[in-house]
Structures are given as C-alpha cells and as structure tokens.
C-alpha cells in the first residue's frame, strides 16, 4: 500500500494533546506510523489546513428496516435530490433518509470514517447488515435493541443476571451486534397494550418490572461482560415538556458505578440525543430549556457520556424504536405515520417532521442542542450528533460545528427565528459566549466517541498504530474569520484517508474504500437454560426459525471484524 506523509497541517488530536501544532502525520500499510518509518511517501501538503483523525459517529439511524420504511413512505424526500453515478460513485439520492450510497458518500465528504447504526431490531438484523454491507467507505457496527426484549424482561424480573448475560452474548453473536441499545425501556413493550412507561418507575404490563430495573440490570450485565461500549440509552418520556426530571432520575441510576472493560472505555452509561430529554415546563406553551440542570449533572459525573441530538431546523423524518412516541408525534403534527411491531423484541414508528423557523418550540429545541455542548466541561464525554435523521440529517454536522464555534453564527440563526425573543427567554443560548475550539470539536466528534465506543485503539486519534483514518479540512484556524468557512470546509474534506487509502479528495469521493463491519463476540460460560429458552421461544412464539434468524457473515456482511471479549471468569 502507498505511503503518505501529511505535512505542515494544523493538527488537532485530544488523545495526543496536540492543539493546532504543525505536526506531520505518516501513513503506511493502512496504519498511522512514525514518520521515520516511511521510505518513499507521497507527500500531501496540508499547509494552511486542519488535520484530524477521521470522524466517529456514535449514534445515527442509517441502516435497517425503519430507515427503509422512511425511504419507502417518503418518496417526496427524494425529489430533486438524485445524482447520476459518476466515477466510482453510484447513483444516489434522498435528503433526510438518503440511500446507503449517499450515506457513505456524504459522511466521507465530512471526513467521517466510522458510523454506528443506533438501533437494530434483532429480528431484522439481516436487513440492517445488508444495508450496512452496501454502504460504501464507512466502518460500521449496529446496536441491537434490548430494552423491551422478552428474554431480558423475564430474566430481570426473576433476578437472573447470569442468564441476561448469556442471552446478550448469544444475541450479539447471532445478530453480529456491537452494543446494548435501550430505547424507551419497557415503554415500547407497554405500547403493545396501548400503554407507555412515562417514568422510569412505571411497571411494564405483564412483566411487572420497571424501566429503572431494566436499565440498571442491563448496565450490570454490560459491565460483567466487559463489553467495549457501555449501555446506550434513550430513556423514557422522550420529547415531553418537563421530561428533564425523568432524564436526571435515569442518570442517577448509575451513580457510583464503575466501568469494567479492557477497551479504555470510562463510562458505564451513554445517554443519547439528550436534547430531546432536557425540557422543562409542563406544556408546549411554557416549555423551556433545562440544559443547565442536565449539564450540571453530566459535568459532575465522569462515569457517563452523552450525545446531543441537535435540531438543525430542517424538514426531516423521525424514526425510533420508541413506538408510542411516534404515535404521540403524529397526533401532534398530523403527518403520516408508520408503525411496526417486532415480535418479542421491540417496535418502531416513523413520522415526517418539519422543524420550522416559525415555530417557537422548534427554536427552543435548536437552542437546547447547542447549549448542551456549550455547557460541557469535558468535551471527551459530550458528542456531536443530530440523532440522524430525528433532529436533522447527519450532513448538517458542519453546520452544527459552525454554530458551536461561532457566537456570531448562532446569533444570526437565532435572529432568523420568528419567535427569537421568546426562544431567548426560554433558553440560555444567547447568554453563552463560549465558542468551541477545533480541539474541543475533535474531542466531540472523534476522540471522545472512539473512546466511549471502546475503539480508541483503532480510531479517534493520530497516534501511531491506529488505523490510518485521517481527515484534512481546508480550514486555516489562524486566518479564518467567516464562520461560513467552517461549514464549507467540514462538509467538503480536502482529504479523507480510510485505512491508509485516499477515499475523498477535494470534496469528491474517489474510492469506495474497504469498509469493515464491527461486531462483538463475548464468550460466557455455557448456559443450558438460556439455550433451552431460546429454542423454546423460537418454537412457541417467533414466526421464524432460529436458522432463519442468525446473520450469516458470508452472506450479509462485508469484511466482518470480530472484537473478542472473554467473560467466562
């Protein structure tokens, strides 16, 4: 493979503590190496440019059945967006629910190399993997959803933690999953009864355990299994005024818990799209930001991480395994609604949503997403996402970065809102002068996410030995004054190296790379009871057989990458 030497760029790497120094980055055989290891490199002149490790997205909905439901029932989302195939690129299109090809190309253009699919229904793991297989360039993994799974609910009800662990091990292996995702724990199952769990103490019908027990039990199992990532939580009561109390209660469940793993992960719990969980007030009329209370807690508890879920003020498509929430949303906005029950496991809903500049609540939501980042004391624990496509499409990350890095840019956006003064009254944003640095942005978009995923030995830094995923942006931090340059540069990487290969040059995709699909193989002691239970559930309840359930690597995956964990002790 070719050798590259990226010279003279302003390097930002929170892992190495490099803050804008001009440092050379050397690439050989797909890895980052010391520059002395190169013999005859191609030299890339990055003078006047910003150099970072490639981006790592911890939470986006980019593959699987609910994404495809979004594509299918929103033909209008594709209108006028298609581009013909060109060079190595295939035809691609779509806006908030783009095709897999467009997903790969646009992430690559932003200098991202790794993207985690945030919710995989185990029953549809095959479909999820097929879409990831067809998504070019990106290394990916998917989080199977566990929070409403009958096995988990039964074992936890009976306090059989070892069985939970054995089941998690079986399911991760069978679905080729990466981490434990929890969505509206218990609430989605309750939705099968036409109910919901609006607090973490509402008992789940029939199973008679609470969301708090589900989340805590899965966290304990996660740490006993020593998995690379922590539990990845979307707690109850999403999107409702006053829900910040539920969020804080959820956070408190994990107080004092310590991470147990060999992957450099420090948190025991990741809470996702916290913007949707930070609302005060008791109605849409008086909803207000509680980002301060949320971030006070996050800042003072270093055993947790969060991502933002920034609203980008676009027309988008919401999709979540939180089935009852999507029903609630369609009752609010009266737009079309799709709903699916996934037998024994989860559910999902999809509803289009327009975050309009004329709507006060949308402005408040936009402000809260940014406030969370701007109030963060430790950028290694607070990550940039838009919960793509729920709060906005992922390709708005450069715009989010612009707002975070420039008070001028976010004030201009604030002023363009119809209810700007009311939004200001209900939020803190205009009172915050902080402008994030590129060093902090690098933490929030690659170094921190890689660490939280337990992947800091592969991604997130330019440390020799790591995979050579490097982004070069045409942005000169010494001279750039216009905040629009941030959005432009970070949406059109000058270079993206993926596994040591150039996949983006001057904002154009020039290679489809050599993507990997990451999954976690955790070994546990043989557990005959769980084996019997799995067999029995397939015989009695599932409409498919076990043989038609598992993900066959050869058929459904591209370059599977197994991460082994031994939890037999």
């Amino acid at each position, binding site marked *: 493979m070719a050798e590259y030497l990226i010279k003279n760029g302003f390097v930002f790497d929170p892992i190495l503590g490099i803050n804008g120094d001009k440092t050379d980055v050397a690439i050989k055989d797909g890895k980052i190496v010391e520059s002395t290891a190169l013999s005859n490199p191609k030299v890339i002149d990055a003078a006047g440019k910003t150099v970072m490790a490639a981006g790592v997205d911890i939470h986006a909905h980019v593959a699987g059945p609910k994404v495809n439901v979004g594509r299918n029932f*929103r*033909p*209008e989302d594709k*209108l006028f967006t298609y581009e*013909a195939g060109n060079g190595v690129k295939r035809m691609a299109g779509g806006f908030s629910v783009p095709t897999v090809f467009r997903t790969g190309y646009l992430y690559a253009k932003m200098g991202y190399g790794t993207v985690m699919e945030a919710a995989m229904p185990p029953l549809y793991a095959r479909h999820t993997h097929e879409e990831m297989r067809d998504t070019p360039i990106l290394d990916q993994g998917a989080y199977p959803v566990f929070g409403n799974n009958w096995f988990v609910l039964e074992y936890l009800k009976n306090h059989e933690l070892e069985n939970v662990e054995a089941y998690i091990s079986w399911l991760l292996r069978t679905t080729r999953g990466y981490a434990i995702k929890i969505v509206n724990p218990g609430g989605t199952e309750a939705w099968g009864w036409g109910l919901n769990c609006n607090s973490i103490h509402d008992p789940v019908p029939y199973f008679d355990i609470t969301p708090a027990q589900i989340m805590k039990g899965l966290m304990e199992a996660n740490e006993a299994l020593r998995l690379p990532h922590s539990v990845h939580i979307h707690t109850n009561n999403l999107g409702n005024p006053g829900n910040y109390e539920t969020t804080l209660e959820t956070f408190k469940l994990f107080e004092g818990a310590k991470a147990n793993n060999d992957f450099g992960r420090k948190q025991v719990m990741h809470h996702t799209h916290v913007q949707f969980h930070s609302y005060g007030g008791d109605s849409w009329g008086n909803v207000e930001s509680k980002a301060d209370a949320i971030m006070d807690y996050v800042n003072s508890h270093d055993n947790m991480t969060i991502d933002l879920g920034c609203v980008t003020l676009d027309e988008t498509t919401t999709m979540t395994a939180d089935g009852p929430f999507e029903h609630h949303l369609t009752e609010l906005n*009266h737009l079309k609604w799709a709903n699916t029950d996934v037998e024994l496991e989860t559910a999902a809903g999809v509803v289009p949503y327009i975050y309009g500049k004329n709507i006060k609540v949308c402005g408040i939501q936009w402000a809260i997403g940014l406030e969370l980042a701007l109030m963060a004391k430790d950028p290694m624990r607070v990550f940039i996402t838009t919960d793509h496509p729920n709060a906005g499409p992922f390709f708005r990350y450069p715009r989010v970065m612009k707002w975070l890095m420039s008070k001028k840019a976010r004030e201009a956006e604030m002023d363009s809102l119809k209810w700007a003064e009311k939004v200001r009254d209900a939020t803190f944003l205009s009172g915050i002068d902080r402008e994030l640095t590129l060093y902090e942005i690098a933490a929030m978009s690659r170094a921190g996410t890689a660490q939280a995923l337990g992947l800091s030995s592969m991604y997130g830094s330019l440390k020799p030995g790591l995979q050579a995923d490097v982004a070069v942006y045409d942005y000169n931090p010494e001279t750039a004054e216009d905040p629009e340059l941030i959005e432009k540069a970070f949406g059109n990487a000058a270079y993206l190296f993926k596994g040591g290969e150039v996949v983006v040059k001057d904002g154009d995709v020039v290679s489809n790379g050599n993507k990997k699909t990451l999954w976690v193989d955790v070994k546990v002691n043989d557990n005959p009871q769980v084996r019997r239970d799995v067999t029995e559930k397939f015989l009695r309840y599932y409409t498919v057989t076990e043989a038609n359930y598992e993900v066959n690597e050869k058929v459904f995956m591209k370059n599977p990458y197994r991460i082994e964990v031994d939890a037999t002790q």
Partner: protein
Amino acid sequence: MRLSEVMMMETVTLTPKAQPDLYIDAENITPDAFAGKTAEEIAAIHVHEGNQTGLLGTYFEVSGKGGATAAETKIVIKGDVLRVKYIGMRMTAGEILIEGSADMYVGAWMEGGRIHVTGNVDAFSGTGMKDGELEIDGNAGNYLGAAYRGDWRGMQSGTIRVHGNAGSDIGTFMNGGTIVIDGDVDVHVGTHAEGGTIIVKGNGKSKIGGQMVKGDIYVFGTIDVMMPGYVYRENVDLEVDGTKATFAMYEGDMGERHGKRKGQVIYGHIYQKY
C-alpha cells in the same frame, strides 16, 4: 420591473425530428434553461433517454434564440412530442406553446409563466404546481395538478384549464389555485384537499372530495356516487367561471379532522349544479 425596462420577447422554435426509441426526460425544455442562449447552445442542452444522456439537438431542430431572461423567452414546439416528458418542469416565467400533444409531467412543479398545449397531455401534468398557468386544449391524463407521490403539499397556486376531459386523481392534496375541466373527470377529485378550487363542467363519477378538509369543488353535470362523508346544507346561487346557476351545497368530508376559524369549523365544499 422598472418601466424603463422593455421586455424583449424572443422565441425558440423546437421542431421534432427523430422520434426517440425510449421516452426522453426533457426537464430542460424551459424558458429558464433557454434564456440567454443561442440556437446552437440550446441544441447542446442535455436530455435523458433511458439511462443515457443525449442532446436536445438530436431530437429537435432548434431555431431562434432565448430572450435575456426566462420571462422574455417563448418556446414553441411544432408538432406532437408524445415521447417527451417534463416539458416546462419547474419553469418560473416565460411561455411554452406545444402545437400538438405531449407525454407526462408537462408543467410539473412550475412556479410561473404559461404553458399552452393544443393537443393532449398524459398523467402528472401540473404536479406540485406552485404558480403560473397551464392550458390544455385537449384531454389531460391522471393526477393532473396532484401532489407528488407521498407529499401532502400539492398544488399551491396558479391555474390549470383543460378544455377536454381529465383522468382520475386530479387535485390530490391541493392547497390552493384553480383547476377547471370543461369536460368529464374520472374518479378521485380533490382527495385530501386543504384548499383550492376545482371546477368540473362535465360529469363526475365517484369519490369526489374524499378526505377533503378545505377547498371547493364545483360539478356542473352528474355525480355517480356522492361520498357518504358529505352532508347537504342548502342551495346557493353562484357565478362560477362565468356561469350563473343554482348549486346544491354539501359540506364534508365529515370523516376528517377539520380546522376552526373564528369559532367556526371549516369544511370542504362540493357544489353541484341543478
């Protein structure tokens, strides 16, 4: 436009020559794309035939030239273009005259200007229309002035006038503007409409105004089956597109959620001429 500026209308004439083997997508046949261009430049504009990209000049003899702006550009198509889609798509101003019949999507998403077709047009003409005028001397196909598939925001404004008959599903999800059909229409008229006016001077069939929450539909002739969600209210004397008559006024669709204005519930209206 300031009064001192004088409109200098220029005409581009397209004469069909080779009939394409496949249907061609010609969304570039618009005053917007032709403005400021010579005949040679216009002949070099792209069209799509299947998955191949071709040139307009392969299919049309081009003469004349574009005006300085779209508003100053008139396009005349001499003869039938039965295998050409998307003529006038998204045009914002100017004029297109088709002396013959065209295929689907004529004037789709048009935002202004005027299109006049002396023959017939196929389905999806005036889809998602935002403004402007579309006049068809012959018949129109299905989905005339309807919303794009999946979209809940249909025709916003402007006028569509068909002197012959129209097919099914006209004005689906219509939000504004006017559609006038001199002849008959097939099933599904103004489905899901949230505004706008549809005037059918001939006969209607069934499913007129289904799920309509706001808007007006006038039918001068017969209606085979009235939607059960409509309630007769009263007779009203109206002048509709130049015709004075007494109409039976129905309100509905009662199966739908309706907005309120000043305490009054707003319904969709169907007016049937006596």
